[in-house]
């Protein structure tokens, strides 16, 4: 056996501690002195890094796929927006062409029976006169209705002719009402709808409110 102390004491004091540690090494089996712990930790470290990296790759590919799907969706939406925009532009252009003054006046000529003309004072006066006439007519109608009321308050005194006439009128009206309830769509004809649209367009052109209001 080597006498450690014999050798160590002969060395300078400063290196004593180092030499002591050296002497504590297992010289019998130097393999034991290979830093086992370090090699283990580095492998673990690399494995961990690899796992993280692979996870990262998988994550990236998932994100990438999702992004691509989203991108596709965005592009599809953009395409549909473009299509809608294009259609809107076309419709807007159609509207512009349909509502040109020339076209409106052509439509008015075709569908309207009324001859539109600027009003004049004289016409307003006539209108006023007519109003007066209407008021007079209304007065006449009032007196007539009074007579009818009196007549109908005594039903027995009503002549047979009037009774049959009224009965036939009531029958006709009943038939009309039944027809309307059975086929309400028949009220809205294409001709009526067309005429209404043209009137609204002409009103819009002349600045008259299209729908009556305050």
């Amino acid at each position: 056996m080597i006498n450690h102390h014999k050798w160590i004491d002969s060395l300078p004091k400063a290196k004593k501690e180092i030499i002591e540690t050296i002497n504590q090494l297992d010289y019998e089996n130097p393999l034991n002195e290979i830093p086992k712990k370090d090699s283990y930790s580095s492998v673990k470290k690399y494995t961990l890094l690899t796992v993280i990296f692979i996870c990262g790759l998988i994550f990236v590919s998932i994100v990438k796929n999702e992004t691509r799907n989203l991108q596709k969706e965005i592009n599809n939406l953009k395409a549909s927006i473009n299509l809608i925009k294009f259609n809107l532009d076309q419709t807007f252009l159609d509207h512009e062409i349909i509502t040109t003054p020339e076209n409106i006046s052509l439509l008015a000529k075709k569908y309207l029976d009324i001859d539109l003309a600027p009003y004049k004072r004289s016409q307003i006066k006539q209108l006023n006169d007519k109003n007066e006439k209407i008021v007079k007519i209304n007065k006449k109608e009032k007196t007539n209705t009074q007579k009818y009321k009196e007549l109908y308050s005594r039903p027995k005194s009503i002549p047979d002719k009037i009774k049959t006439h009224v009965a036939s009128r009531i029958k006709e009206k009943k038939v009309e009402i039944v027809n309307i309830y059975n086929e309400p769509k028949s009220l809205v004809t294409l001709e009526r709808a067309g005429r209404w649209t043209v009137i609204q367009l002409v009103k819009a052109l002349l600045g008259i409110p299209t729908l009556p209001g305050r």
Partner: protein
Amino acid sequence: MKNKKKSFYFDDYAESELNDNNKFNIVKVSLNKVTFLSFIFFSLIIIFGIKIIYLSLSPEKSFVNNNKKKEFVKTRRDIVDRNGSVMATNVILYDVGVRPKLLKEKEKKNLLIKLGLLFPELDLNKIKNKLNKEDFFSIGKRLTPEEKDQFWLIGNKAFVFDAKPSRIYPQQSLFSHILGQTDDVNNGISGVEKFFNEDLNSKEKINLPLSLTLDSNLQYLIRKELINAETNFHNIGSGAILMDVENGKILSLVSLPDYDLNQRVSISDNIYTNKITLGVYELGSVFKTFTIAAGLENKVINSNTVFKNLENSLNCDKYTITEHDKLPKDLSIEQILVRSSNIGAVRIAQKVGIEKYKNFLKTLGILDKINFDLEEIGTPLPFVWGKCKLATSSYGHGITTTPLQLARAYAILGNGGYKIKPSILETKRKPLEKKEQIISRKTSDTVNSMLRKVVSLDEGTANFADIEGYDIGGKTGTSQKYNSKEKRNTFVSLFPTSKPKYVLLVMLDEPKPAPNFLYEFPPSKKFPNGYKHKGEIRNTSGWNAVVVAGKIIEKIGPILAINNLEASIKF
């Protein structure tokens, strides 16, 4: 060597040297292999990782491009009127071409049969020749998507479709003289399209339309009346301009004949020139208003001045100046204008003098080229001023200008004497902008009241424009065309004359007497039982241009929302 040294100190260690070395070598080799494999593994991972990152970041070119193709990108700004109605816009139109080389003889015959069935308007003989001789030829230009689809549905491989952004004009010929046209590459070649070409191509403003001061409804009504005038008075052309006297904004500018802007035809005939901005004409008695205004402004006359013993005619060089009708010998300033006296106008101009008269016309911008928003601008013809020139100019003969400049001069007289710049471009007016007064308010007011009398008095020359409620004033002008017996009749009106808002100029080119036209007025203060007069052989402005102007004002009045005095009367 090191091991050998160690063995010097540690004998036992030295003994086992060989065995230990072998073990170390085994460990070293195994570690090197692991490191090498790891290195390759990591290298591969890094390479693939970089590739994946690169792929993730790079855009999917093909997909994006496919979608971009569907997007319609505007290349030129729209043009709209003051109400926002589109006057010009861009759409995609298609040119269809044929490559005959791609077809066999049988296929060519089949194609001809299909074309004949689907497009009977095509000249099949021409197409047949082209199919046999040419490598490529065009079969349709500026086709709509629907028209293009008709060709596409034939399903022939020889068809080549070329989509092009093209300019279209929904109002067709309504604004043809103002808007102008563009060429095949969308650059303006005339009118607004040319004048504002850079602005219209500006990419920053591409989604903002270019807004004009014009009004489609007013334009339509005025154009319609001018077309009616052609039926009634058989004139070969006409023009009209409606301007706001306060700011020079032009609400309507019509020149007939016009043309459909969507039909690309090269127009070279002079008849298609813009009569309002490019045409330079002698406009006749409408200049008398300026003569009187010059006299009032230079204080050589006043509203009470009366010219006595006026001659029936005047001689100047070889020319004789006469009156158009029998007029009283003594005429006041007002009567000179109302009755349109030539001799009276000459006398006033002589009082004003050449320099002052010339300067006055210059102030009104009659003699120089006008600065306007169109390329098509006429320059008044220059001449040498002299005594005779002064005399003839006083009643509008021997002096030329454009109707646009004439309308501006009347607008200045009507608005209190403030300078204005006519414009068709809608701009926001700066609130602190000061107006330059070039004519006194007094002169303006006096002239306005006189112009009203030209229309309202029985002896006035413009009675047919006295539409009740609109307080119209104006001056007629009848001039003979150079080297021709034909006439050019003009009427410039201001309304309402109590505080003028608009100036309307109507000009008829070569009108004819209208023996079958029914001149009529509805019952009014002036004509309680109405007025009807069938046919007239006189061919002066008062018998045609004035009638047309009256009808126009009657139609556009409600749109302009002038306080119609007639309508405001309560009953």
